[in-house]
C-alpha cells in the first residue's frame, strides 16, 4: 500500500516535468505527446521555418532567450556578491546584541521574506526613479533607470534574508569561546574573523551563495517590475507563454532539469567522497589505537553490487525499446518531418477552402456560441493562426 502512495506522490511531483520533457522531442509545433509527429532534436537546435515562412525558434537560435539568460546570470552574480556579505554581517550582529533586543532585531531582519515580492519590485523602481530624477542627466540617472542594477538591488532585499537565516543556523552552533581563545593567544579582531570565523562559516557561505543564485535565477514577481525594459530568463519565458507555448520551452525546461540533476549528483558524489575520506581517517585512528585483530577483520568488507545499477539498467532497457520502436515505425529523421509537413500543408489549404465556402455560416455563428465545436488542439497546433498576435520570433 505504502508503495502505491509513494508512487502517486512522485507521479504528482514529477509527472508534469516528465511529460513536458518528452514533448521537447516531438517535432510538432505545439508541445504534445499524442499525436506524435516525429522524433526530433530540432527544438534544441535551430527550431523550424514553417511552411508559411514563419520562424519558430529553437533553443540555440532564440536570441531573446540568450539575452535573458545572460542578464539572469549577471543579476545572479550581483545578488550573490551583495546578499552573502549582507546576510553574514547581519547574522554576526545578531550574536552580539543583548537578549532583549535580539528578538526585535531578528523579527525586523526576517521581515523582507514576508513582503510580497511584487511590492519590493515596485517600491525599488519608485525609489530609484525619484533618485534618478534628482541628478538630472549623468551617472545617477543612468543607474537609477538601469533594469539590471535595480533588479540586483530589489532581489538582494529579500534574498539576503535567506542568507541571513542560513548563517544564523550555523552560528547558533558556534562555540564563542573559540573567538576568545584566539584573542587570548594574541590574534587581532581581524585575524579572529578571517582565521576562526570565516573557516567555520565556509560551508554556510557556499550554501548561501548557491541558494542566493538559485533564488535570483528563478525569481519572477520582483524582477518583472524592477527589470524595466530589459529581460531576464523568467520574463522572457513568461512573455513567450503569454503568446502560446512552444516545444522550445520544453527543451529549455529539460535542459535546466538535466543541469540541476547533474549538479546535485556531482555535489552528492563529492560529499560522499569527503565523508568516506573522513571515515577512513577515523577508522585508521581506531585501528591504531586498538591493536586488536578482531576490529581489523571486521572492516574487510566483501564486493557489493551498488544498488543504483538496477535503476540504470531499467532506464537503458526502456530507452533501447523506445528507440527501436521509433526507428521501426519510421518516426525519426528528415523524411518523417517532410511527410508530416506535407500533410499539414494540404490540411491547411483544405481548411482555407472550407472557410471560404462557409462565409455565410460564419455570420450565423457570430450570433451564437463562439468557437462552436472547433477543435482547439488544431488551432493551437497551427501557429499561423497566431500571426495576428505577433507570432513567434
Amino acid at each position, binding site marked *: 500500500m505504502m508503495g502505491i502512495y509513494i508512487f502517486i506522490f512522485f507521479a504528482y511531483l514529477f509527472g508534469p516535468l516528465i511529460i513536458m520533457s518528452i514533448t521537447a522531442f516531438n517535432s510538432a509545433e505545439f508541445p504534445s505527446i499524442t499525436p506524435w509527429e516525429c522524433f526530433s532534436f530540432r527544438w534544441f537546435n535551430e527550431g523550424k521555418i514553417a511552411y508559411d515562412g514563419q520562424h519558430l525558434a529553437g533553443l540555440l537560435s532564440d536570441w531573446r532567450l540568450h539575452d535573458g539568460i545572460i542578464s539572469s546570470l549577471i543579476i545572479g552574480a550581483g545578488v550573490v556578491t551583495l546578499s552573502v556579505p549582507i546576510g553574514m554581517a547581519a547574522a554576526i550582529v545578531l550574536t552580539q546584541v543583548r537578549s532583549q533586543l535580539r528578538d526585535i532585531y531578528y523579527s525586523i531582519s526576517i521581515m523582507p521574506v514576508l513582503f510580497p515580492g511584487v511590492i519590493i519590485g515596485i517600491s525599488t523602481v519608485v525609489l530609484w526613479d525619484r533618485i534618478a530624477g534628482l541628478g538630472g542627466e549623468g551617472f545617477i540617472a543612468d543607474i537609477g533607470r538601469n533594469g539590471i542594477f535595480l533588479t540586483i538591488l530589489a532581489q538582494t532585499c529579500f534574498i539576503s534574508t535567506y542568507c541571513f537565516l542560513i548563517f544564523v543556523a550555523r552560528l547558533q552552533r558556534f*562555540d564563542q*569561546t*573559540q573567538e*576568545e*581563545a*584566539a*584573542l*587570548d*593567544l*594574541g*590574534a*587581532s579582531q581581524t*585575524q579572529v574573523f578571517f*582565521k*576562526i570565523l570565516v*573557516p*567555520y562559516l565556509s560551508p554556510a557561505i557556499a550554501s548561501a551563495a548557491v541558494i542566493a543564485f538559485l533564488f535570483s535565477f528563478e525569481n519572477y514577481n520582483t524582477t518583472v517590475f524592477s527589470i524595466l525594459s530589459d529581460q531576464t530568463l523568467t520574463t522572457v519565458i513568461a512573455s513567450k507563454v503569454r503568446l502560446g507555448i512552444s516545444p522550445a520551452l520544453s527543451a529549455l525546461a529539460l535542459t535546466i532539469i538535466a543541469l540541476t540533476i547533474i549538479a546535485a549528483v556531482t555535489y552528492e558524489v563529492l560529499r560522499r567522497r569527503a565523508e568516506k575520506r573522513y571515515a577512513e*581517517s*577515523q577508522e585508521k*585512528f581506531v585501528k591504531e589505537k586498538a591493536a586488536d585483530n578482531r576490529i581489523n577483520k571486521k572492516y574487510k568488507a566483501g564486493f557489493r553490487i551498488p544498488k543504483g545499477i538496477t535503476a540504470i539498467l531499467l532506464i537503458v532497457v526502456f530507452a533501447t525499446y523506445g528507440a527501436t520502436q521509433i526507428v521501426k515505425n519510421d518516426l525519426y529523421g528528415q523524411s518523417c518531418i517532410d511527410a508530416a509537413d506535407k500533410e499539414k500543408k494540404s490540411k491547411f489549404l483544405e481548411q482555407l477552402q472550407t472557410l471560404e465556402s462557409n462565409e455565410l455560416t460564419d455570420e450565423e455563428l457570430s450570433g451564437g456560441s463562439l468557437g462552436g465545436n472547433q477543435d482547439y488542439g488544431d488551432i493551437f497546433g497551427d501557429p499561423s493562426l497566431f500571426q495576428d498576435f505577433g507570432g513567434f520570433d
Partner: protein
Amino acid sequence: MSADVELSDVSVTFGSFYAAKNVNVKVNGGEFFSFLGPSGCGKTTLLRAISGFQEPSEGKVLIDNKDMSGIGPNKRPTALIFQNLALFPLMSVSENIAFSLEVRGVSKEERKKRADELLELIALEGQGDKKVHQLSGGQKQRVAIARALAVEPKVLLLDEPLSALDLKLRQRMRTELREIQKRVNITFIYITHDQGEALTMSDRIAVMNEGELEQIGKCDEVYNNPLTPFVATFVGENNPLYGKVTGIEGDKAKIETADGQYLATMNESKKLNIGDESIAFVRPESLFIPRDGDNFDNKIDVNIESFEFEGNLKNFYASLKSGAKIKFSVPNAIDTSSITSGSSIVLGFESSKSVILPKASLAID
C-alpha cells in the same frame, strides 16, 4: 619567565549583582596558585578579569606590578585554558599549537620547530598532523596546554581544565600539570571546585564563596586551620558541633552543646568571648575509638546508624543524643567487626585537632 599577579580590591558586577567582591590577593611569580570554590561563586569571573575579557567594575589587576586596565586580552602576558578547552576543530594539532605564533607573523619553519618542541613537552611527538577530534580527552587537554605555552606567557590561567575527564585520567593529569609547571617555571593560576585537585597541586589556595575570598593560605594551613565555617566544611569533610562558649583557657575554648561540653582550639584571628554562639569542628579522621590507655580531651557518646566500606577507610554514620549526625572514618587496617548498626560506643578526639569558630553558614547548608 614568570610574573606576579595582584588583584587589588577587585569587584565585578553584573547589574547590581556582585560576581566578585573586594578581592585582594597577590600571587607570586612561579607559584601554583588555586582558586577553590563551589559552582557559581565567581571563579571564572575572576579569571576573566585577570586575562582581560572582563574589566573589573572596581579595583585593579596588576601583572608584574603593571596596571592592566584598558589592555585587551591579546596584549596581556597571560594565556587562558578554557573550561571547555576551546581548541580549534578545523585545524590540525600542530596548527592549534602554533596559532599564537602564526598570528604574530612567525615563519612557517619556525612555527613547525616550536610546535614539535611543545609536542615533545606534552609527550605527543609525531601526532601533530592529527585533527583535534582524533585525540582522546587527556591528549586534548595537553594540546590545550601546549597551545597556551607556545608564546611563553608569564602567567598561565586554567579554568577547571580537568573537570571533563574521568577519575583515573584526572589524577594522572594532576601530576602531569604539576610537572609541566615545574619544567616551564611560570605562574599557574588554577581554578577548580574540586578540593582534592586544589590540595594536591597547589602551593597556595584561595577559598571563595559567593564572590568573596574566605581564606588564602598554604594547603595544610587551610585544611588544619580554617578561618570560617564555610572553609571548614568546603575543604575536606567536617562534623559541626553547635553550642555556646562557656570558658576560655589560653588558645582553647570550652563549648557547651546539647550533647555535652567539648574543648576546642581557637584561631588567633577569630577570638571568642564567653557566651558567643559558636561551632566546634572535628574531622571524621580525627575521631577515634579509644583503646586501653588512650586519654582524649573530649569524649562523645554516639549510636551507630550505618557504615560504608570505601577501601582504605571504613566510614561510620552515627547520631548523638540530641539527634545531631556525626561521621567518622577508621582505617581499614583496624578491626572494627564488632561495631555494627545499633551499637552504642564512646568516641574521643583531641582539642588540638578541633577548631572552634564564630557561628556562620556552612558549605553544605
